[in-house]
């Protein structure tokens, strides 16, 4: 395969596409709302009306507005229908020619859509994720061709460094620096690992990217392989995402068939193969050293760092580990240039971030916004606020993050600002809570999660999370006193600073942040101190 063949495929696919495309979402969220029957009926309706020569129905990936699914979009008429039932299908097809559709029409000009800037999700909801030709038709795999034939590995690393991209798994480590570290290691066996173990409850960006645009991730991994000198990659996906696994397998098969993955890619000396590894339900496997251990077929126990995986990772070889969303940014950076990417976002946090906006909010779904947008814009404008009530707090970053009170909603969303508030960017889950939610209850919920998910290798995390959970339960039952509260704070401090890996180090965050911003919720539950059973000593 050379560039002319690639462009030929793209041209052929474009010429085959009908002028009007009816996009029907077939991702997990809309599938659960029966979108597959909708798609079948749409196809039937097109045949019945005899529009097969002008209209095609395409099963696409996630359009983002999952809370109002199943979604159907008419391209290029820019019409969006929400909550479509199979019975609406015929009227939607008639509406193309000026009829009236029975399904509620969505507003593509609503801030939820209008405020977004799509880089990672540029193809999501526009192309069929199960067709490599459609991906190539929108310019896919050209960046990979460009790096292999027109750039040296060092130039690729420089481009990524210049873009200012930071790890989208949540911690925000500069991607270019990580790549450079692996690239500098002596030549030999190196690995690329894509971390798709999205265990944070309330986050589903990675699932959506893998389901909607799997080739984008494969391309990002292959570019990384070329840049750091690796010939083999692994994608680690949670077993809870069967559709993502299925689509990845299809995508890998298709790319191999065209010679885009495998040996001598694009007639060059560069070989790159990708394997899928399926997780088995352990939150800790999102931690890079635990993930490596899991790929090797063992228990997902983290190990101390250094040595970092970049020096000694999978089977002792230098390994580059990045999150799904990080890899999904790579192709666009190569295509448009690092400077273009660096022009988006804030001074220290470049580019865009995908968030999963959920909880008690009007518009549930996925959004991709430039860094530096404020939480208020996300929650009030894009999310449409809470149907009947006020926002009390926004939880970001899952079990490792914290709760941000409504008074601080004007904070810009970037790595540093969120850390300063005692939360973190995390993988991108944003759960909105209203007055009905008890913050102590939320803290206990996360502690219950960490208690169950700790791997048990280090004592602070294994025993500390259990004790914190018990103390929070005691507080909620109204049986705790001031001493318990102090002990809880001491435990938070101890677990945070003495745990072995990121899971334990960040486990107390939900407790610390709720104690910091909602102390009155704790104090009202505390019993007045009865001298703690101590007798005052009289002199």
């Amino acid at each position: 395969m050379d560039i002319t063949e690639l462009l030929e495929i793209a041209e052929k696919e474009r010429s085959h596409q009908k002028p009007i495309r009816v996009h029907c979402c077939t991702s997990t969220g809309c599938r659960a709302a029966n979108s597959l029957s909708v798609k079948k009926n749409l196809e039937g309706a097109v045949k019945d009306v005899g529009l097969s020569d002008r209209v095609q129905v395409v099963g696409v990936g996630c359009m983002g507005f999952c809370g109002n699914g199943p979604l159907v979009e008419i391209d290029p008429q820019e019409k969006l229908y929400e909550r479509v039932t199979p019975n609406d299908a015929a009227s939607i097809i008639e509406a193309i020619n000026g009829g009236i559709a029975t399904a509620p029409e969505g507003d593509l000009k609503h801030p939820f859509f209008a405020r977004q800037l799509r880089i990672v999700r540029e193809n999501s909801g526009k192309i069929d994720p199960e067709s490599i030709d459609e991906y190539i038709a929108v310019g896919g795999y050209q960046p990979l061709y460009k790096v292999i034939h027109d750039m040296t590995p060092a130039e690729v690393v420089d481009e990524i460094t210049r873009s200012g991209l930071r790890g989208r798994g949540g911690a925000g480590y500069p991607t270019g620096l990580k790549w450079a570290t692996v690239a500098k290691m002596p030549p030999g066996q190196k690995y690329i690992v894509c971390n798709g173990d999205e265990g944070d409850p309330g986050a589903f960006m990675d699932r959506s990217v893998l389901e909607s645009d799997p080739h984008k991730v494969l391309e990002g991994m292959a570019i990384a392989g070329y840049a750091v000198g690796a010939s083999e990659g692994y994608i680690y996906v949670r077993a809870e995402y069967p559709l993502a696994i299925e689509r990845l397998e299809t995508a890998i098969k298709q790319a191999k068939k065209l010679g885009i993955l495998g040996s001598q890619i694009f007639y060059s000396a560069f070989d790159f193969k990708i394997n899928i590894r399926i997780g088995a339900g352990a939150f800790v496997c999102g931690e890079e050293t635990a993930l490596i251990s899991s790929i090797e077929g063992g228990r997902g126990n983290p190990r101390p760092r250094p040595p970092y995986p970049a020096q000694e990772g999978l089977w002792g070889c230098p390994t580059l580990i990045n999150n799904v969303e990080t890899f999904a940014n790579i192709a666009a950076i190569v295509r448009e240039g690092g400077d273009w990417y660096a022009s988006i976002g804030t001074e220290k946090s470049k580019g865009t971030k995908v968030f999963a906006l959920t909880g008690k909010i009007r518009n549930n779904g996925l959004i991709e916004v430039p860094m530096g947008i404020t939480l208020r814009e996300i929650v009030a404008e894009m999310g449409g606020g809470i149907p009947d009530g006020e926002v009390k707090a926004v939880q970001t970053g899952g079990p490792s993050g914290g709760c941000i009170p409504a008074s601080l909603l004007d904070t810009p969303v970037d790595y540093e600002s969120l850390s300063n508030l005692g939360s973190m960017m995390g993988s991108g889950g944003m759960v909105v809570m209203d007055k009905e939610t008890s913050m102590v209850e939320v803290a206990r919920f996360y502690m219950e999660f960490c208690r169950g998910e700790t791997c048990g290798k280090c004592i602070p995390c294994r025993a500390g999370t259990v004790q914190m959970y018990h103390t929070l339960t005691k507080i909620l039952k109204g049986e705790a006193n001031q001493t318990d509260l102090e002990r809880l704070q001491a435990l938070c401090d101890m677990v945070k600073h003495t745990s072995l890996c990121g899971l334990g180090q960040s486990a107390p965050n939900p407790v610390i942040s709720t104690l910091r911003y909602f102390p009155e919720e704790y104090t009202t539950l505390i019993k007045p101190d009865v001298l703690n059973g101590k007798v005052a000593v009289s002199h």
Partner: protein
Amino acid sequence: MESTGIKTKQKADRQAASEHPSGDKRFKVLDITMKRAQYRQDALIEVLHKAQESFGFLEEDVLLYVARKLKLPLSRVFGVATFYHLFSLKPSGAHSCVVCLGTACYVKGSGAVLSALENHTGIHQGETTADGQMSLMTARCLGACGIAPAVVFDGTVAGKQTAEEAIDKIKQWGIGNEA
């Protein structure tokens, strides 16, 4: 001539010795999986996934068989099987109902859905009804937060569930109707 006969017999003996004595076809499926992975020890998790798919749960016999085939100590196989939540060492019910307890589902009341199901069936999460009809399980997060609260009935995700809806669903399986 004779020596070939002996060789064939030896080969057949070796094969018989390496096969599972029960002659259960499901072990053959496992064999194919392990062979495809070239009996590499790092394929353990994949093999256990396949085993659970074929057998429904990981019985001791299966763990022993896998350990022997991959030349791993049983402690290592057992350690991995017990570490990951998805592997079950107990038989599961004919139907499965998985309630998502992720943050978004939790905030929207999945806890109430779970307790209603527990009350209706008389079992706790992680247990199977006495008649082996249904297993009630929980998930950390299904990633279907946009349609919270989510419940998975026999592998099909259902969104925006209320306690009544979930109970209706399991009643269709004929569970707890007498309750």
